[in-house]
């Protein structure tokens, strides 16, 4: 089963996205910020895809992606940024950090699922 890790400081976002993905047949791991997500990766959680917010307390999404790329087995794992921000500068930063794509909130459930199928082979 494809496992998706959701990283967002909004409990509402985590709940709603988890519901959408679970219903679509994915296994879901959640974290409230980048630091917590890194800790989960260090403990052996191996997601097939990471979807992360950008602005979060303790560790922002772009820093998290940069650090997550260094974790074992995470070099080629797709990592999507899901944020309210639409500025090109931030997108470029995320791309340099190793993000796979940039999605601007709000994203419709079918659009999100379509992107996941695009970036995760066999999802």
């Amino acid at each position, binding site marked *: 089963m494809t496992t998706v890790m959701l990283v*967002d400081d*909004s*409990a*509402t*976002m985590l*709940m*709603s996205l988890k*519901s*959408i993905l679970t*219903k679509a047949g994915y296994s879901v791991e959640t974290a409230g910020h980048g630091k917590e997500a890194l800790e989960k990766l260090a403990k052996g959680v191996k997601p097939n895809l990471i979807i992360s917010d950008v*602005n979060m307390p303790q560790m922002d999404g772009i820093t998290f992606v940069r650090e997550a790329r260094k974790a074992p087995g995470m070099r080629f794992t797709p990592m999507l940024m899901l944020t*309210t*921000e*639409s*500025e*090109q500068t*931030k*997108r470029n930063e995320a*791309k340099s950090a190793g*993000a*796979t*794509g*940039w*999605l*601007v*909130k*709000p*994203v*419709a*459930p079918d*659009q*999100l699922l379509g*992107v996941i199928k*695009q*970036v995760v082979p066999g999802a």
Partner: protein
Amino acid sequence: MAGLLRRQAVPSTPEAAVRADVVAGSLRPVPEFCQIVDAHLHDVIEQTGEAAEAIVRQMLKIDSLAEVMAGDVVRLAGTLDRTEDQLAQAGDSNAQLVDRLVRYFLFRDEQVRALVDEMRGLKKHVTQIEEVSKATNILALNAMIEAVRAGDAGEGFAVVADEVRKLATRSAQAASGIGTTIADLTARLDAVLTDDSNFDENVKTDLSAEDTAMTRRLSGIAQAQREMSEMVAGILHDTVDAALQVRQSSDALTVETTGAVGHVQFQDISRQMLEHVADAVSQVKRQVEDTIGYAEGGVPADALIARTISVDELRSRHVMSRQRVTHGEKAGVAAAADDTPVIELF
């Protein structure tokens, strides 16, 4: 530098000279005002957050119930489908049973009819006995006559006696025939009632050509049974259709709740927008505090000017497309078209 500010802000007439203590006094409530506004903004953020979380939880509960309902309906439809099949099988089985019964009764009818025909044959023996009886009467009359003449012709009695003997023989034969036939018919009737091994249910008979009281009654029963089966099958079919419609409605409800759950992202967006507004209010507060400090002599003019808030800087913090458009409209600056895609894969 304080003089410079005054020169920029007011006319140089003595009566219009700005009093720093008045400026400071008029601005003094503003920081507290801003704090209250900030607190209200955070209240709104907190309350909408809680409301959005509650909405999502409710949606997920509805979704879960819809899934349970869909599962129940699928199971019900499956049960009804099986019942419909079983009913159809029972209907077929009953029809076959009625068919066999009709054939069986026809078989028995035929046998009984044959026996009736044979019993009619007994009439032949009865006729014989009647003839014997008549002849015996004549012989008795003759014997009476001969008895009158006995003295003269004794031989006549011998002839009569011989004829009477023959009649007796014929009577005995007729009686034996009747007895044999009755025994045979009794045995066969008994066999018809107790042994149906000669009945072959596979022999095809055109039942539509048969019209007896029994076939009419059995056909009536079969027809009533067929109509009842069709009625129950119709009810089951309608119930299965209704169950499938409930399933479709349940699926549609799930799609709608998923969409609604997706829309709850508005809370995250509005939270961030309100946080930006709260940040802007805090900048206004700081600027006012600086200005009060400057008017009271605690903040140097250079520091005041250096920390002056900027509309351009405010714009730079507006990271959402909609924020930039609103900012442009209010600042009287045409917002640059936002051509960045909503979804971009690198």
